[in-house]
């Protein structure tokens, strides 16, 4: 065990409790769960982006030995409610498409489920899937979001009469009149501003790819109902959704997200149509049914985000004051048939977070989201604002270049200096010190020194550049934002249960995907009770035993869940202290006792003490001679809601060298500064930051989902969807400049979710800084050597 002081495990780099099992192949995933007699399901998926289904012939497939059932959309549309249902529908006005788990009448993207084959094993199921013959009549696919919104475009979801699934104005109040007035005021600033930069910033379709794809195993029992093991970040929401859609009374639905899941990153947060039909099949056949997604299916269906165009304008004065911001965003939503998010919830939040940590006196920010015949956008870490942050951080550099000011100086001058602060899009920044973070970064970056090196390098025809970016990120999602955005509560909930042996069980309703909840939770509980983290175990993701939680999303661990854990511990400590004071005949309450080294010690006289185990055993097992009004037992469930929405803040600096000959670049340095609040486990926090920055680099440079002009998905394997290798990413120099969060009991912040968002801007800014002698400004991602080389050619020829 690592060094610690006075049983304070807070801030200890404790090796993760889960790692031995995960690294030795002992993790138990959905695929490892055995239920005798489980059948295997395989989807027949659409080969077309947009086509009418004329007929589906399953007769040949049904003749194969080992086939249990083949389902099609026509068969199930009368048996299963259509989506949307309120439990998975945000309280945002939108054209929600109607759909069933299997396509009915037509297919709307390459990869859409058309039929489901259930068989005794996966081999037979795949043999049969090949023999399901679907007769299609091709329709013109809608693939470009701008074209999709034109009146002459084909309509994907006919009942809506439009491909515009969602649109919103985020500034200027709630009425059209006030928004128009605001827009006019913004326009006036632009007309008079000495510096205006306007450009179109494009981010490609990319996102996240968890190591474990989606999987579900359902069992049905006529008296107990449905038991579903699902790879999911939000088992409690899945439970309610399955209950509502399949008309199974809620007490008869239990969802278990296994303790081990190979990553989520947002992909496992939606409620998916595949889960509905698998659960239906288990009920229908009264047999367990398992579906495990292939990598090909996964890359074809999920993990696709970021796909946006942002037409952005910034007005500034010659002294480097930001005057106004105008942004018209257009997101390519894909088909929109994914529960909870529907594709557009990401761009919605992306627009709210667009202004970042800067003081904008005025802004006009609007968003349109267009449905296309592509896979629906799914949440991906840096939810919605990877594109808008790229646009704003890039645009800020372009403004600084025009003023003739260091981009970093321009940023510092306009960062919010005093918190709390409410942003121009009404996002609340509760606490922190942005300037302290920024100054920590700048000290490490040593810009004056770099500019000398850059000049010297240039004289040797070497092109090195430095780039900056920063990000205000959500630390959990307060109910205030979560209820309207997703119709879900933001509070964190935890049950802490002591047992007579002095050990602790913790129960949490969110379902982690590898973030280290077991270790972090154990450290907090051990610190509270003065015991060892080894004495603490945690159960997550089982709706049968855990309190309600909206899910492992939006950096809810270090903000909401762990705060609920701490508060539950404190509630139990109060009771323990009351009993101990009673037994020792002291006039004392919890603040008079210290919990340390496995003992509870009276501060007024340290000979008055009890071992933690004995007092706990006494309260649970020997409930006689008790303080007045008390009962035995030590079990507490707490719901934590912060007074205000909370944030964390980070900043990036990177240094690159660009080859003029090939446009290839090498990242020489990556320096950060982070305000993560109080740290529970620095190894885990470092890991979150490393992972997020690598994900950001990989998204910016390598990863791209590509559709051809017929809407065929061309990148559904790792030969074509390129992800960064270890050798492709730099060493990362992490620095911390923390301010404890005043709104959580431990001063912690939730971290890691939004963290990739400042990466694309910082990296592209560095490349443009290196190429500043040619006046090259890059506004389109991915940041690929061929595109950079072409820009150099255009600038030099």
């Amino acid at each position, binding site marked *: 065990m690592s060094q610690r002081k006075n049983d304070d495990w807070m801030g200890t780099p404790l090796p993760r409790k889960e790692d031995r099992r995960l690294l030795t192949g002992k993790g138990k995933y959905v695929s490892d769960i055995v239920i005798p007699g489980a059948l295997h399901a395989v989807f027949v998926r659409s080969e077309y982006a947009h086509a009418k289904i004329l007929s589906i012939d399953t007769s040949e497939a049904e003749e194969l030995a080992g086939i249990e059932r083949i389902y099609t959309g026509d068969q199930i549309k009368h048996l299963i409610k259509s989506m949307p249902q309120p439990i998975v529908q945000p309280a945002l006005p939108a054209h929600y498409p109607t759909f069933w788990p299997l396509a009915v009448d037509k297919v709307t993207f390459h990869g859409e489920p058309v039929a489901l084959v259930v068989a005794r094993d996966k081999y037979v199921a795949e043999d049969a899937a090949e023999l399901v013959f679907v007769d299609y009549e091709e329709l013109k696919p809608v693939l470009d979001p701008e074209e999709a919104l034109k009146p002459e475009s084909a309509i994907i979801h006919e009942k809506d009469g439009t491909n515009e699934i969602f649109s919103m104005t985020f500034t200027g109040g709630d009425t059209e009149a006030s928004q128009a007035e605001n827009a006019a005021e913004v326009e006036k600033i632009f007309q008079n501003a000495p510096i205006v930069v306007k450009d179109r910033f494009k981010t490609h379709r990319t996102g996240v790819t968890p190591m474990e794809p989606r999987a579900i195993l359902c069992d049905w029992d006529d008296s107990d109902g449905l038991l579903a093991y699902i790879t999911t970040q939000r088992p409690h929401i899945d439970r309610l959704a399955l209950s509502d859609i399949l008309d199974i009374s809620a007490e008869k639905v239990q969802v278990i997200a296994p303790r081990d899941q190979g990553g989520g990153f947002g992909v496992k947060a939606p409620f998916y149509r595949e889960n509905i039909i698998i659960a239906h099949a288990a009920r229908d056949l009264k047999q367990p049914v398992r579906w495990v997604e292939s990598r090909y299916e996964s890359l074809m269906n999920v993990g696709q985000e970021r796909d946006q165009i942002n037409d952005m304008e910034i007005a500034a004065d010659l002294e480097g004051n930001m005057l106004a911001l105008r942004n018209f965003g257009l997101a390519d939503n894909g088909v929109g048939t994914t529960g909870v998010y529907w594709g557009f919830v990401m761009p919605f939040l992306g627009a709210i977070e667009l202004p970042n940590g800067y003081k904008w006196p005025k802004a006009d920010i609007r968003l349109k989201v267009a449905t296309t015949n592509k896979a629906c956008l799914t949440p991906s870490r840096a939810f919605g604002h990877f594109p808008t942050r790229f646009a704003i951080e890039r645009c800020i550099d372009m403004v600084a270049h025009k003023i003739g000011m260091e981009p970093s100086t321009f940023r510092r001058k306009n960062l919010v200096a005093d918190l709390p602060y409410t942003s121009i899009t009404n996002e609340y920044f509760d606490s922190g010190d942005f300037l302290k973070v920024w100054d920590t970064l700048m000290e490490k970056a040593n810009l004056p020194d770099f500019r000398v090196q850059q000049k010297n390098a240039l004289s040797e025809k070497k092109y090195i550049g430095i780039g900056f970016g920063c990000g205000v990120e959500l630390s959990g999602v307060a109910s205030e934002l979560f209820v309207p955005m997703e119709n879900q509560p933001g509070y964190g909930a935890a049950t802490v249960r002591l047992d007579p042996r002095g050990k602790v069980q913790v129960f949490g309703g969110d379902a982690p995907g590898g973030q280290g909840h077991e270790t972090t939770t154990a450290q907090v509980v051990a610190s509270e009770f003065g015991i060892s983290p080894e004495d603490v175990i945690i159960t997550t993701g089982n709706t049968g035993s855990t309190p309600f939680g909206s899910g492992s999303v939006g950096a809810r661990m270090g903000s909401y869940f762990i705060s609920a854990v701490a508060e539950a511990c404190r509630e139990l400590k109060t009771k323990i202290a009351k009993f101990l004071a009673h037994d020792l005949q002291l006039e004392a309450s919890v603040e008079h006792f210290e919990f340390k080294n496995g003992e509870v010690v009276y501060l007024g006289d340290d000979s008055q003490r009890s071992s933690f185990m004995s007092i706990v055993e006494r309260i649970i097992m020997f409930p006689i001679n008790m303080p007045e009004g008390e009962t035995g037992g030590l079990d507490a469930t707490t719901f934590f809601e912060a007074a205000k929405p909370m944030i964390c803040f980070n900043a990036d600096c990177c240094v690159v060298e660009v080859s003029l000959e090939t446009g290839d670049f090498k990242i020489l340095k990556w320096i950060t500064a982070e305000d993560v609040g109080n740290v529970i486990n620095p190894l885990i926090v470092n890991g979150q930051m490393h992972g997020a920055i690598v994900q950001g680099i990989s998204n910016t*440079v390598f990863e791209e989902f590509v559709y051809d002009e017929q809407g065929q998905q061309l990148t559904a394997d790792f030969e074509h969807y390129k992800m960064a290798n270890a050798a492709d990413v730099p060493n990362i120099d992490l620095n911390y400049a923390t301010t404890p969060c005043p709104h959580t009991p431990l001063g912690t912040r939730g971290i890691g979710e939004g963290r990739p968002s400042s990466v694309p801007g910082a990296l592209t800014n560095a490349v443009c800084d290196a190429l500043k002698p040619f006046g090259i400004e890059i506004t389109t991602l991915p940041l690929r050597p061929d595109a950079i080389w072409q820009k150099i050619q255009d600038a030099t020829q």
Partner: protein
Amino acid sequence: MYPAPIEQYSRPSTLEELYSLLDSNEEDILVLAGGQSAMQAVKSRMLRPAHIIDLQALSELKFVTSEKDLLTVGAMTRYADIVSSDSIPLELMALKDAASRVGDRQVRNRGTIGGSLCWNYSAACTPATVLALDGAMNLISPDGSTRQVAADDFFLGPLETARNEFEILLSVDFKLRGSKSGSAYKKWGLVTDALPVIGIAACLHFDNADCCDYARITLTGLSGAQRCLEAEASLLSTSANAEEIAEAMMIVCSKVSTYTDSMATADYRYQLIKTIGLEVIEIAKKRAFSLG
């Protein structure tokens, strides 16, 4: 990703056993070497073999030997074994260049030179390298008859070779040209060790006057391994200086057509041919003069 029905799996441990298996003339046989490409094709049902004959237990095909002016590499020699072999001389260093950057560590530990040559994927590293090194394939038929096919005649196009269905590649011979010869291979892909968007191999020999009297340049990534005959000819009787190499690569560019996809534009592919070509040929030249 589950294969179509497979009737039979065999794992011969001697060549005799292998020949008797092949002698039956059954259809839809897949001879499996390291399985790093073929198994993906089987799992995705692109290939539907009825019978898989797995060569992994054939230890007699795992070797690297050199005799006088000949280096022979057994077909079941794994990339990792090529990289760590002490028998491969500097003039055949292109082999190590290629083998050390194929796929990832797992692929290099299982994938074999023979498997890669017989699969002949359009963007593979090994076929282009063996073509530049003028390797000769030693093939054997179930009846015991053998033949040797030069690399020039072996690679017919992506996923196509001169190997007959029932022939087995036993080994590859490389003739050593002695002093003042050198070779190199390099590729560019989006991420480290990716399949090449463009890969180039070169093998040069210089005469007593340090003039290039032998040159083979090959290209991969566009449509399989291909020779750049006109560029090779242009280097002969030159000292292969930077200018002459650049000119040779201009000739390559004028003879091949490139294309745009999600990895790189057509123009960028030409640029890669020029920059990688220059680098590879300069390395080969340095090695020929034992300078690197």
